């Protein structure tokens, strides 16, 4: 706290925005505190925004959709098409899951762009949990569909026995790296983007303490922040899309063994 106050006086601490604060303390479970944190608050806000918007926009149930209903229907159609293209019409059984995942990440990324808001997806705990959920569904569905034949996943045919152990090890590593790359990509993009924004915004404040010349110089980082904000909104949408499309592709692998 002391260092935080010290850094606050002259420069902006770019990491401070990721601090997790306990808002309501419920006590302890084991040795860790059990609390309602700002992260949980923003996840709740995300879910409430999505549910509220969906319910409000489809309240009219117009045959000819209004403006709000059109947005919801377009989002629905977009997700449905994405899933159908990647996993076929059989994949539509996972539609509720993919739609929930996509809308949660998209809205969480986007409300993270609002100043003073907490970016839920910039924490690897969240993205890791989401990626593990995806892989759990892939593995669970694969085992329920193929039985123990699903383990053949790691054993290619027509491989000489001598190098088979090495190939199996590489295949297993490749499989394990899937949730890792899925979670790290989303988390690293959000984290790096928000830190970059904060650093450039900090330049403006630092430069403006130097008087008129500083103000003139501060125009450059200010332009940079404007450009970066636009880029970050693109990245927020893009990363949600990438997460969703990869989920679809992994689900497709479990659904349709033949491509």
């Amino acid at each position, binding site marked *: 706290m002391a260092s935080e106050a010290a850094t606050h006086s002259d420069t902006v601490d770019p990491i401070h925005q990721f601090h997790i604060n306990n808002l309501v303390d419920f006590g302890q479970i084991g040795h860790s505190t059990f609390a309602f944190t700002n992260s949980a608050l923003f996840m709740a806000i995300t879910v409430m925004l999505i549910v509220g918007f969906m319910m409000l926009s489809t309240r009219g149930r117009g045959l000819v959709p209004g403006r709000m209903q059109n947005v919801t229907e377009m989002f629905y159609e977009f997700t449905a098409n994405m899933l159908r293209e990647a996993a076929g019409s059989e994949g539509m059984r996972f539609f509720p899951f993919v739609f929930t995942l996509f809308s949660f990440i998209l809205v969480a990324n986007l409300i993270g762009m609002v100043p003073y808001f907490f970016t839920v997806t910039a924490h690897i705990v969240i993205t890791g949990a989401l990626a593990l959920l995806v892989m759990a569904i892939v593995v669970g569905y694969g085992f329920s569909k193929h039985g123990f034949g699903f383990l053949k*996943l790691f054993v290619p*045919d027509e491989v000489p026995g001598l190098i088979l152990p090495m190939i199996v090890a590489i295949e297993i*590593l*490749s499989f394990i*790296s899937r949730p*890792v790359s899925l979670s790290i990509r989303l988390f690293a993009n959000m984290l790096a983007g928000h830190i970059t924004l904060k650093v450039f915004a900090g330049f403006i404040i630092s430069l403006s303490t130097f008087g008129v010349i500083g103000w003139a110089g501060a125009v450059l980082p200010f332009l940079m922040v404007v450009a970066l904000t636009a880029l970050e909104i693109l990245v927020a949408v893009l990363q949600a899309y990438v997460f969703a499309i990869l989920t679809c592709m992994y689900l497709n692998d479990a659904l349709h*063994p033949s491509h």
Partner: protein
Amino acid sequence: MADKRSDEERREKADGGHGSIADTDLERRFADLSRTLDKGRRVRQAADKPERTDSSGYALALRIASEFIAGVLVGAALGWGLDEVAGTSPWGLIGFLLLGFAAGVLNVMRAAGKIAGPYDRLDKDNDGGPARHD
């Protein structure tokens, strides 16, 4: 007069008798029309494309880079963990890091569509089997 009538009759006969020719002619014109429309659609899609490939190319680049890094990281983490448990430092780290690089390359090749995914293998075993029915 008689001449004109026979002319009409002949024309009628030609229409009735060679109806299939008229049908095929119609079909040919339909095919021509759909070909023309397809061409226009393709041109429009080609015009629309650059914008789309920009963002999806960026997504693909990010994806391929992170796939490779993830392979290496998982290999290193597993090797390090094995060393910690079995006390074989640094051999586990070295071996698994190398395997991790291989897995990373494999991930990249799969992401780029150069190698078929591992799930193709399952298909061969289930060919015609009951497992595929659902």
